[in-house]
């Protein structure tokens, strides 16, 4: 019985890739798929490709299979916990998971084993999802700069082109979802660390409203900007996860199923990052423009608006805030074990250690101005569509490309302002690298951006393509 809603099309079946969470949930509910099969499929996929892409730093096959058998039994006994019951997920290695190491991609935490789950890992498990293991991350979630090949874990590779960067700092999260080594990934985003991997790997990455999700049990990177968020292959999957993470008390709308129309929605469009920052690649501009046409055809009304504060100024403020708070968080380690750090983290912490209080406060004051100005702009619309990163995934080790990818973005304005934002694939380059855009909503109105993203996804064919590994 797959005639649920008129628009519900069966998910594409891609050889070797696990199905989406929503598709798997339908199959599990119909008794045609077992959580054990699903977990085994992911484990096989890990076995087959993770030696190449290195999305996982730790795979807990034994406990995952045990949990899958338990889920299978619960579901068979009629005790289904909902759509995530039996769905495999994995967490960036800055989330604690009971009994597993938490290393944050750092030598400084070698040997650390968590004794309890981070709140959000626990929330996923409560919803019945099955933890496969931990995903690669740049050290302590350090997100800007390049790849220096100096961390204790292998460098994650982009499944669309293994010579390219998978986006960071949630490096394993985007790669794993795109490569199908997991169905769902949990990442975290300070100045783009969910959205950059999503953009580089062509998946959906959601940074929810600042404050919506509980960060307890995660390694802090920057108190005032850290936001945890899911990465998934489809918008519907991201929405299912958001509901599970936000908990029953939060008002998060149900997962959108392929809305056919966006009529009546007013969407602002921001094209220009303002002075001081290079604009987007031509391929991104083309895909963006075509995407706008799709939104218009779906019935949305589009309005060109401008960013109230240049993106370069936002990036500067975010850098000062990020490095200062990181330096405060990891101060003792910078004093005692700087030689055990990778170049990127040590660079950031030294920068933060030298920043004066007045400069940090000046940046936080700029942030309030940016947040207020952006809120006034965004409040007038149902959502805003803009660019995410201004480049496609760069070549690993090619320093100017790497730095440009992480620094030239439209991501930091919304890190500063705390508005929910989502990155999704909106096409491919001629050489098959994913393109993307960013949809931003009013605070706590994730429902609007999920609806728009779901409608766009249903009207386009980008989800039919998977990386070949």
């Amino acid at each position: 019985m797959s005639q649920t809603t008129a628009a519900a099309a069966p998910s594409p079946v891609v050889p070797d890739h696990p199905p989406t969470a929503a598709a798997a949930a339908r199959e599990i509910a119909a008794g045609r798929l077992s959580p054990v099969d699903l977990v085994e499929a992911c484990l096989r996929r890990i076995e087959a490709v993770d030696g190449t892409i290195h999305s996982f730093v730790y795979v807990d096959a034994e406990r995952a299979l045990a949990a899958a058998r338990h889920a299978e039994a619960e579901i068979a006994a009629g005790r289904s916990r909902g759509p995530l019951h039996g769905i495999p997920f994995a967490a960036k290695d800055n989330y604690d998971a009971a009994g597993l190491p938490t290393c944050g991609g750092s030598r400084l935490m070698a040997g650390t084993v968590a004794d309890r789950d981070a709140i959000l890992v626990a929330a996923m498990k409560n919803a019945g999802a099955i933890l496969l293991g931990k995903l690669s991350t740049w050290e302590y979630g350090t997100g800007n700069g390049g790849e220096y090949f100096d961390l204790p874990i292998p460098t994650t590779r982009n499944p669309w082109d293994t010579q390219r960067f998978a986006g960071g700092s949630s490096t394993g999260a985007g790669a794993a979802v795109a490569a199908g080594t997991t169905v769902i990934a949990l990442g975290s985003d300070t100045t783009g660390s969910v959205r950059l991997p999503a953009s580089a790997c062509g998946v959906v990455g959601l940074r929810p409203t600042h404050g919506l999700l509980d960060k307890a049990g995660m390694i802090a990177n920057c108190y005032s900007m850290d936001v945890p968020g899911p990465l998934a292959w489809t918008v519907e999957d991201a929405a299912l996860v958001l509901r599970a993470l936000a908990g029953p008390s939060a008002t998060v709308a149900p997962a959108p199923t392929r809305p056919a129309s966006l009529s009546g929605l007013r969407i602002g469009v921001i094209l220009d990052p303002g002075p001081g920052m290079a604009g987007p690649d031509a391929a991104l501009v083309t895909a963006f423009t075509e995407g706008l046409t799709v939104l218009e055809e779906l019935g949305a009304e589009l309005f060109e608006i401008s960013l109230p504060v240049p993106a370069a100024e936002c990036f500067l403020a975010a850098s000062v805030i990020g490095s200062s708070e990181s330096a405060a968080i990891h101060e003792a380690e910078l004093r005692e074990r700087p030689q055990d750090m990778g170049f990127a983290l040590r660079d950031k912490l030294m920068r933060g250690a030298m920043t004066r209080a007045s400069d940090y406060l000046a940046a936080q004051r700029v942030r309030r101005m940016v947040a207020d100005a952006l809120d006034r702009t965004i409040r007038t619309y149902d959502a805003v569509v803009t660019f995410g990163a201004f480049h496609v995934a760069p070549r690993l080790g090619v320093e100017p490309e790497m730095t440009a990818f992480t620094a030239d973005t439209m991501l930091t304005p919304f890190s500063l302002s705390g508005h929910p934002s989502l990155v999704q694939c909106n096409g491919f380059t001629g050489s098959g690298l994913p393109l993307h855009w960013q949809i931003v909503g009013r605070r706590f109105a994730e429902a609007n951006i999920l609806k728009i993203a779901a409608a766009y996804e249903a009207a386009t064919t980008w989800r039919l393509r998977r990386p070949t590994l």
Partner: protein
Amino acid sequence: MTDTTPWTIDEIAAYAARYGLTRLEPAHLERMREIADKVALASAAIPRMPRKSDEPAPVFRVPLT
């Protein structure tokens, strides 16, 4: 507003030692000198808010969440 003439390596060594960064290797200190110049420029580039009542973003609130 800020003196952005380059830091000297001696100033950096003194600054680092003053704030307890005593285990940095010479190469780290040299890197710190480069960073310090960038920090000085970045700090000077942060716009100062026009009014004294323009507050930093995270304000203290109770009850604590």
